[in-house]
């Protein structure tokens, strides 16, 4: 580029000149580029527009992109030396290989984890199935067994109770019958009881029922229907007890407590 300025004082203004020279150079370059651009702009505005539809878009765009890429490539090759490209290519290849290997490793990890997960899920499923089976068994098993046990117990106890009562009744009938009507007292002033006598079995029944019906007051009044010797028998053998304050009341001894 030729310098337009006149050099008035070469020695002192050399640096300033260089700077202004460089500036002028740059400005000139910029202006030239701008002019080129305007020229290109004009050419571009002459090119017609073209819109795309879905059907022709892909093909025409691919062709266009290929053309433009080749144009850009040739432009690049003209402008920059090969070395810049190579360095860039080497760097990119390095990056590519690291990323690819990372990708591979991640895929392997993912597969492994997936397998692990599947196995765990299988284990979980089979454990769940087992658990459900066992739960059912336990529940049904224990319920029915307890129920059956209780039933049989109840039954056995009821039977035993019946047996005892029957045996008691038979025993009492055999050994402690009601007296005949012909036992008469010689002394006339003793009043004979005209009430119907009840059996010892019945007396005992009354005593037992009273003891379980009214536990806090198990006493009954001695009635005329009780044959006195039997009362004496019960009292003397500790089967019945008198009321501590009232001699006319007796109760059954609490053998079950």
């Amino acid at each position, binding site marked *: 580029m030729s310098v337009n300025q006149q050099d008035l004082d070469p020695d002192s203004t050399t640096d300033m000149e260089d700077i202004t020279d460089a500036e002028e150079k740059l400005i000139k370059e910029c202006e030239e580029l701008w002019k080129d*651009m*305007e020229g290109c*702009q004009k050419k*571009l*505005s002459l090119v017609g*527009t*073209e*819109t*795309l*539809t*879905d059907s022709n*878009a*892909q093909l*025409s*765009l*691919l062709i*266009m*992109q290929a053309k*433009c*890429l080749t144009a*850009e490539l040739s432009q690049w090759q003209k402008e920059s030396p090969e070395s810049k490209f190579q360095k860039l290519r080497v760097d990119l290849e390095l990056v590519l290989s690291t990323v690819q290997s990372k990708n591979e490793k991640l895929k392997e990890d993912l597969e492994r984890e997936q397998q692990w997960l599947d196995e765990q899920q299988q284990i979980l499923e089979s454990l769940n199935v087992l658990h459900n089976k066992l739960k059912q068994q336990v529940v049904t098993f224990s319920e029915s067994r307890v129920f059956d046990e209780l039933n049989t117990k109840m039954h056995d106890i009821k039977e035993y109770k019946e047996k005892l009562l029957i045996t008691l009744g038979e025993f009492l009938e055999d050994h402690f019958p009601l007296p005949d009507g012909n036992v008469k007292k010689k002394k006339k002033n003793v009043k004979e009881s005209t009430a119907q006598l009840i059996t010892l079995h019945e007396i005992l029944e009354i005593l037992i029922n009273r003891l379980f019906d009214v536990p806090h007051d198990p006493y009954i009044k001695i009635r005329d229907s009780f044959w006195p010797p039997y009362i004496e028998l019960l009292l003397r053998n500790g089967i019945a007890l008198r009321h501590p304050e009232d001699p006319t009341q007796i109760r059954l001894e609490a053998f079950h407590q």
Partner: protein
Amino acid sequence: MSVLRPLDKQPGLNTATILLVGTEDALLQQLADAMLKEDCASELKIHLARSLPLPSDVNRPRIDLIMFVVNLHSKYSLQNVEESLRHVDATFFLGKVGFLAMGAGQESHCSIHRNTVTKLANTYRSPLFFCDLEREGFRATVAQRLVRMLQICAGHVPGVSALNLLSLLRSSENPAPEDL
């Protein structure tokens, strides 16, 4: 001028302009705000439009990048974008167009399938981003990406052209078997 052309005007000094086309006005506004917050050496200009063609009486700068925003919850938004695509010149699709699909996170509300948008992006050989614009974090991330893309499309990044970027973005996607 009913058809948008990429190089119809001289560029502004250190200016990069993006046009966001979509029916979701509020979210586009929020995205624009997020983009303006990004650090950028160039001056950013963001235009919002519901659909193309743009009114021709307005004096606007040269548009460097068009992003079509599709809401996967609304069929109308897809229709709108498809119609707007007819008003874009073919040369725009050399890296200066992108698609942004939002709402993919809520599958139950999606009336458009992901594949529909993917096919659309494949047909126009343009990159497709998925983003839930309602979440601030995701919005900021996509705003960052868009700002970088815009800088390249405006030519502010030396050594990388819009078409280069497009090749880089597209090479990671394998063409679907039905496209071949």
